[in-house]
């Protein structure tokens, strides 16, 4: 720790921080544009100038490491004037087209104008004109006139993706961001530059003009694009998701996410099943549930409990997997519980993207649920399964011909699914379940970090969290798990697995950045 004097107050701040970070820990915000904790310091915007006793002239906070005994002033008239000055310079050639700018509402120029602005225009000279609607790449559009040349986007492509597509060309007030001639901003992480851009210069082709940001609500969640499980926020309005943005998690994704993950919000409502289907006909949840429960009773009566296989998936939340396991063991009393998930891999990379596209395979490992497809295959090949209940598992869509043939032999298949497909209409019954932003829960990502999902909005139509439908089945068969909320599930989960989740005492106790679990403990599972 270092003791510094900040605006006359002695404060203790952690060592190794720069002044922006240190002041923030003491509750003092130093405004800045170009500084970003995930990028190398560049020091070009000059908004974070402060006074430091003994220094020659004002100093930029982003490039000043805290030192014990430092005396810093961020609230003097001189500092205020510097900020006003920088703000005025930045707005001098800015089009001030907020009413038609997508960044409005989450723009630093706007925010700082309110706080540090000069409120009077004293410029009589024409603005510098630059290019507008510059197509940078598949995801990103640039307005050079709105750009404040903070170089965050350039530094991102240099130091994070190391692809270097962007450059500031020319000099002086002719400086502008552009892609190198013949190049496009088309790396797998290009969307991050939109989040990084503190102003409306870089906007998302996908999001722009869809919503005013102040109409959007935000929930903290996790990306389900792959097993890396990047921490995200999902921005939504009236039950519609509009975008994912990465949320800082140093254990998982730092400040970034990949473009494929970013756009995966579109799949949330793609081909969604909103009603139950019984024998190919839409029906109510109640009727479909009754039919499924009746089928379970019949199969148990005629073939015994082992004729039922309950198959979860690596797409479900840890809590759903847990309840599924309880249902199989305690209510159905079948040993045939599996998490075999056949979702095909994609190409991973060294940055964030993992080849495995399931968000919670490690959840199955920690719960001790077999997820080896060979096991499930052997049950089906032996012809022992009379009723196959698949939960959030698109085996019928993702399995190859040999799987299709095996599935076709099973007398009855029931689905708890998000997707309305031809397969869902063929099987005995299909029940609509919620997607991961419509429920609370948690995932254990590839490196073993358990992260919780916040709920954005209620499930659409008749769909409900799989966990609730599994409980309803149990209840109909005479066992009430009593899980009124996610916390109740965790109480039992921690009792059932006292060793597996050290440091966690409740669902709401899972910290913002998650908890790194010991993967070695479940090695080989």
């Amino acid at each position, binding site marked *: 720790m270092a003791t510094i004097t900040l605006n006359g107050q002695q404060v203790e701040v952690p060592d190794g921080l720069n002044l922006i970070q240190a002041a923030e820990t003491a509750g003092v915000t130093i405004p800045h544009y170009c500084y970003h904790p995930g990028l190398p*310091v*560049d*020091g*070009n*915007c*000059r*908004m974070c*100038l402060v006074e430091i006793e003994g220094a020659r*002239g*004002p100093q*930029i906070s982003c*490039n000043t490491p805290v030192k014990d005994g430092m005396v810093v002033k961020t609230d003097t008239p001189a500092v205020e*004037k*510097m900020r*006003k*000055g*920088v703000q*005025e*310079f*930045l707005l*001098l*050639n800015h089009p001030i087209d907020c009413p038609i700018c997508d960044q409005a509402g989450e723009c630093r120029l706007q925010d700082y104008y309110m706080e540090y602005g000069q409120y009077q225009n*004293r*410029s*009589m*000279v*024409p603005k*510098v004109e630059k290019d507008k609607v510059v197509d940078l790449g598949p995801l990103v559009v640039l307005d050079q006139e709105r750009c*404040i*040349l903070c170089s965050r986007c350039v530094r991102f492509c240099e130091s994070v993706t190391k692809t270097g597509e962007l*450059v*500031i060309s*020319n*000099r*002086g*007030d*002719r*400086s502008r961001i552009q892609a190198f001639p013949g190049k496009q901003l088309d790396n797998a992480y290009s969307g991050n530059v939109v989040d990084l851009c503190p102003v409306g210069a870089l906007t998302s082709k996908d999001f722009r003009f869809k919503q005013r940001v102040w109409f959007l609500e935000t929930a903290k969640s996790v990306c389900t694009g792959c097993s890396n499980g990047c921490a995200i926020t999902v921005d939504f309005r009236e039950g519609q998701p509009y975008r994912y943005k990465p949320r800082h998690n140093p254990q998982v994704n730092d400040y970034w996410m990949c473009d494929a993950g970013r756009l995966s919000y579109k799949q949330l409502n793609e081909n969604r099943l909103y009603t139950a289907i019984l024998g190919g006909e839409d029906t109510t949840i109640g009727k479909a549930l009754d039919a499924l429960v009746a089928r379970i009773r019949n199969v148990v009566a005629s073939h015994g409990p082992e004729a039922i296989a309950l198959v979860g998936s690596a797409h479900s939340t840890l809590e759903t997997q847990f309840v599924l396991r309880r249902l199989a063991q305690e209510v159905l009393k079948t040993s045939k519980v599996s998490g075999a998930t056949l979702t095909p891999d994609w190409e991973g990379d060294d940055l964030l993207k993992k080849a495995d596209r399931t968000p919670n395979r490690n959840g199955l490992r920690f719960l001790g649920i077999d997820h080896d497809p060979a096991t499930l295959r052997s049950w089906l090949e032996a012809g022992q399964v009379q009723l196959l209940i698949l939960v959030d598992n698109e085996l019928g869509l993702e399995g190859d011909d040999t799987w299709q043939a095996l599935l076709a032999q099973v007398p009855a298949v029931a689905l708890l699914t998000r997707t309305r497909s031809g397969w869902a209409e063929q099987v005995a019954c299909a029940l609509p379940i919620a997607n991961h932003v419509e429920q609370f829960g948690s995932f254990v990502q590839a490196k073993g970090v358990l992260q919780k999902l916040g709920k954005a909005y209620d499930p659409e139509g008749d769909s409900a969290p799989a966990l609730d439908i599994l409980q309803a089945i149990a209840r109909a068969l005479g066992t009430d798990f009593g899980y009124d909320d996610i916390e109740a599930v965790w109480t039992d989960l921690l009792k059932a697995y006292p060793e597996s989740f050290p440091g966690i005492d409740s669902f709401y106790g899972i910290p913002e950045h998650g908890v790194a679990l010991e993967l070695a403990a479940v090695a080989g599972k």
Partner: protein
Amino acid sequence: MAFTPVLSIRFDVPGASRLEVYEAHGGYQAVRKALGMEPAALIEEVKQSGLRGRGGAGFPTGLKWSFIPKDSPKPKYLVVNADESEPGTFKDRKIMERDPHALIEGCIISAFAIGAHKAYIYIRGEFNQQRLNVDDAIREAYARGYLGKNILGSGFDLDLYTHRGAGAYICGEETGLLESLEGKKGQPRLKPPFPATHGLFQCPTVVNNVETIATVPWIVQHGAAAYAAMGTEKAKGTRLMCVSGHVNKPGVYEIEMGIPMKQFIEEHAGGIRMGRKLKAVIPGGSSCPILTADQAESVTMDPEAIAALGSMAGSGGMIVIDDQTDMVDLLEDLLHFYQHESCGQCTPCREGTDWLYKIIQRINAGKGTTEELDAVLDIADNMEGKTICALAAAATMPTRSYIKAYRHEFEAKIKRERMTV
């Protein structure tokens, strides 16, 4: 001690840029002496001479050399700043044209002193002929064993390269120069760290001006005391002055530090042309605050004396201005230069240089207002000292000084009065 020329000895010797002529006039004797000395003793000698950097900032050269860490495992570099871009300055060009071996000899001695085995001369883009001349001289020096492996049997190795810039004023700023030399866009770096520890390729580096380095052989040969005997108490020795503008004999002249400016203008520069009167002097390059005729005629050419008047001796680029000159015109021209040359990295300089230029343009065109003239001073305040390098100040310091000394001319333009000058 009486004035003895140090830098201009061979300027008028025919063919002095060729090795044999340079040698015939005492060249490459200093390097023989230096290679027999301890590097630390050399640095001490340069410290004792009182030599200060001739690029503009006037930092003591020996002190700069002593900042190079002795125990660093990294290679060390000597970089010569030959980007000479400050308007009004053209002395390094003269050295490279007329006496390139003095520069090369200086490089060998300086590199030996700091322990560098590679040295670069970064030459401004427009100096093509000068670069070719230096390259010829370097070839000669290699052929005679002054460069390359085991120089003169001393065991000391040095490779010397020239590198031409692409035409940017900012590459004269030492860290902008280093960026450019590394093949990047020429933009100044954040400091700290300083080049002495993190310079070229992040290695310990000394960056010195051409004139500074070219002075070193003389100091080694004649001793620090002989050099320090000339000049003033704080500014020792001699320097090259470039004089241009409204004088009869513009050119490069070597002077002893501290002679009266009036004497220099009248004797060396031949007085104001066409018998006109002196109006003002830019004493050391376009970024220096202006001196009025009264100030110029009473000051001595000593950095401390010029600083006492709020200006700078800078890089020795004196521009003499006669009484027919419109100061608003002059400032507009000057600001056009800085507007064009701002690297665009820092907000206040990128936006401010252009804004100042446009306002002065408006005022000069009779479209300006008094509010705008006042705003100029406030904008200048918002720029100066708020940026990574000193380019913003290079634009604002003269701006403030012109308006302070000649405000009536600006106001006359605003009121659209007929100019009386």
